[in-house]
């Protein structure tokens, strides 16, 4: 079976909608995940009583269960008890729930990566705990965590492909749906792969440049 350009061309408008949706959901999910992750890692860094234990539990539960099961839970199981969100909302909440812990780990890893001598030096010139965090640990830790954050961003975008199981018409769902209706798997899967490449290749190049910039800014190498 060859590839029909005509089939591809006809499908492009539908795929475009899927692509836009994928981008939107990813964007909101990633921003949410970064905010949640930052808050969680701060709670952990400052060892805020009670909250930091809660954060630990959240991080473990979120990191050690599949997004697909998390989504099934949100979408199919929660409404049984009266919590109902629409599919897009479920998707975003799921992505933030999952991504928040990944981002938190990324930030925490960066903060912990700041060398002990830097922290001690900060103390030695009389910085308070807050000042130490503000002027030493966060700027350097953030630079150290950028590679992990970048990897998480790519990871989360790819995870949106799982939204197909809760009927969100993003890229993957679009392809599977078209295949079910018109049976042109070759063409639709090709467009699908290209669709992800269009999002992810430029993004990953951008992130690599950003990593280098930030690293240079903070450490000069």
């Amino acid at each position: 079976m060859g590839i029909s350009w005509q089939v591809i061309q006809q499908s492009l408008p539908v795929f475009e909608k899927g692509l836009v949706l994928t981008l939107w959901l990813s964007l909101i999910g990633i921003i949410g995940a970064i905010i949640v992750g930052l808050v969680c890692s701060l709670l952990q860094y400052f060892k805020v009583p009670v909250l930091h234990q809660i954060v630990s539990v959240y991080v473990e539960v979120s990191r050690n269960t599949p997004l697909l099961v998390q989504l099934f839970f949100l979408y199919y199981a929660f409404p049984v008890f009266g919590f109902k969100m629409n599919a897009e909302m479920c998707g975003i909440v799921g992505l933030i729930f999952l991504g928040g812990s990944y981002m938190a780990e990324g930030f925490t890893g960066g903060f912990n990566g700041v060398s002990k001598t830097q922290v001690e030096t900060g103390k030695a010139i009389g910085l308070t705990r807050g000042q130490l965090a503000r002027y030493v640990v966060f700027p350097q830790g953030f630079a150290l965590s950028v590679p992990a954050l970048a990897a998480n961003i790519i990871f989360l975008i790819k995870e949106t492909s799982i939204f197909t199981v809760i009927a969100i018409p993003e890229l993957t769902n679009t392809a599977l749906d078209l295949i079910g209706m018109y049976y042109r798997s070759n063409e639709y899967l090709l467009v699908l792969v290209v669709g992800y490449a269009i999002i992810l290749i430029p993004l990953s190049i951008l992130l690599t440049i950003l990593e280098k910039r930030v690293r240079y800014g903070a450490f000069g190498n």
Partner: protein
Amino acid sequence: MQMAEQILSVAHLEKSYQKRHVLHDINFSIAKGEVVALLGPSGSGKSTLIRCLNGLEEYQQGTLTFNGEEVTPTEKNWQQLRQKIGMVFQSYDLFPNLTVLDNILLGPVKVQHQSREEAKATAEKLLDQVGLREYENSYPRQLSGGQKQRIAIVRALALNPELMLFDEVTASLDPEMVRGVLNIITELAQDSNMTMIVVTHEMNFAKQIADRVLFLEDGKILEQTPGKQFFEDPQTDRAKAFLESMDF
């Protein structure tokens, strides 16, 4: 040793890491303007002791008295005290994300709430003294090891401390860089009359600046001897052997 002007006294200090007992019943004082060299073989506890004096390590027993007041070892107290007790480490420990000037101003401006102008004036005076005024807007990565270490000293001095602690500040420098750094400390001791405790492996340097030597082994002070005398005629055999091993 006149009690009157003791700036820091240490009494019955004991320190363990988990099971390892590394400091045993340490007792000594340092008077205003005095320079104490802390010598001893590797692993004898010099760094640990000096870090205890700055609150970077917790100790299990004993009391520190600073300017006549007993130190209650809380994080908050230490944070205050560290403005009076400056410290410079072996590693070139400048903050890589800040310029030389910002490294120096961080303490005076943020901790001591001096105005930036005032602090900058002091900083520039100090930078002139160490001959690095022209680098004030450079980043640490643009400096050599010796230059970084001199800036680190300026950064500690900018807080106008009453006591300075130096822990092997030349140990990671190229041999040719060592002299510049030691010269600054020597000037500080001799011209500015700074009170200081210096850990070093440079015996010639120690001989030149030390009013008194504390010789440590296995976490105990084996002898406390005036500088000159220690190098000419140490009281213990162990110190003698140590001095011999230090020159090839």
